């Protein structure tokens, strides 16, 4: 008899045994152990001939099958001697096979789902570093910012009768162009566009006015700020140089 066994890959001895049982079309609860053992060993021999590595588990199973086979050949003890029905030597292996079969069938279902369910997911968005510097607070909105301001101003005005806080400062007779330049640049940075007169409203003396004006001229020279007027006699505005002011209304 020519051996024409297609060498399939089996996941393990249980997988192979299930295959042989199915092929032999026998009842799993009543395995013809001699026949199945023979086929099992034949399969291992075929694997050997093909120089396939045989996992040790396959060999252990071969030994187990041979042991069951020899047990099956022993004459059965009489039932009268013992109340208990003697165990079928195949019982353990059958239980194992049945349990394994259950999971194998479930695995088959999973495989089918895997092949059919062709859905794809999208990788999550990565928020870059620049954005991650953003801060978010749960409890702060423009509304409560205004409310907070209104409250503190009211409280302040109840405490004092003064309108201007700047007046509280003691002016010092040393106004430096450098400081005024920083001051102007700071303001321009904050407000982007400021009325020219704004810089002089807070001046406390003539000297300060002059120093401020000089600082402004210096900044214009350094091209740090722009001064412009839409029409004669209209307000003069100061703006940061880097601003795209052409795009604005003026």
């Amino acid at each position, binding site marked *: 008899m020519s051996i024409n066994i297609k060498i399939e*890959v089996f*996941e*393990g*001895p*249980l*997988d192979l045994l299930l295959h042989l049982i199915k092929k032999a079309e026998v009842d799993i609860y009543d395995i013809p152990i001699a026949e199945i053992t023979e086929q099992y060993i034949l399969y291992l021999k075929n694997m050997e001939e093909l120089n396939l590595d045989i*996992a040790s*588990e396959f060999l252990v*199973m071969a030994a187990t099958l041979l042991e069951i086979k020899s047990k099956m050949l022993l004459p059965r003890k009489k039932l009268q001697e013992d109340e208990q029905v003697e165990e079928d030597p195949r019982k353990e292996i059958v239980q*194992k096979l049945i*349990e*394994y079969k*259950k*999971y*194998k*069938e*479930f*695995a088959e*279902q*999973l*495989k089918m*789902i*895997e*092949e*059919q*369910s*062709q*859905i*794809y*997911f*999208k*990788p*999550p*968005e990565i928020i870059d570093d620049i954005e991650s510097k953003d801060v978010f607070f749960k409890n702060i909105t423009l509304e409560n910012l205004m409310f907070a301001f209104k409250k503190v101003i009211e409280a302040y005005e109840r405490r004092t009768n003064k309108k201007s806080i700047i007046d509280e400062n003691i002016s010092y007779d040393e106004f430096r162009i450098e400081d005024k330049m920083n001051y102007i640049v700071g303001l321009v940075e904050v407000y982007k566009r400021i009325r020219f007169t704004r810089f002089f409203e807070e001046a406390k003396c003539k000297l300060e006015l002059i120093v401020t004006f000089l600082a402004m001229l210096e900044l214009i020279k350094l091209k740090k700020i722009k001064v412009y007027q839409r029409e004669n006699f209209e307000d003069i505005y100061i703006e940061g140089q880097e601003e795209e002011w052409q795009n604005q209304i003026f």
Partner: protein
Amino acid sequence: MAESDFLKELGLSENTERIKGIIESILFAVGDGIEIKELASIIDIDLKELKSIVKELSADYEKDNRGLVLIEYNNKIQLATKPEYSTYIKKILKPESKQNLSQAAIETLAIIAYKQPITKVEIDEIRGVRSDRAISTLLERGLIKESGRLDTTGRPILYCTTDEFLKYFGFKNINELPELIELKLENEEE
């Protein structure tokens, strides 16, 4: 007045539409499952209301002009592509982005899914072979995870399935799994 009722209705439904948009944008950005509860707190909306909007949204996606579906598992929702358009996606995505599991891995997964939490020794016992490689593949794919240790000699690691597993196979939660298997097996025996 009927008119004001109508306007109120209109306002509410406009709001619903906007919330759908918000949900979509969040799910798109996250690219993963998100708990419905968390979503409700982010949008600052009643959980019950959100659930009903999610249901509507899910139905919206069924239209032909939509390429996405809303999947649900473990009280999470996630966006995914429509299965019927997968042929087109396969054409552009690299094949390795979706590799089917080996027989050993899928058997091991089946056992873990059914018997979780379970140790490697128990899995080996059921399969009749060692499952080391299958387990490490499944861990790598994020389909299973370690979940504590058993209180016996050697304190072996216990394995269980992940949300990724539910998502991958389209199960809503792990509880429905054993029932599904049992049901299937019974039907086959008939």
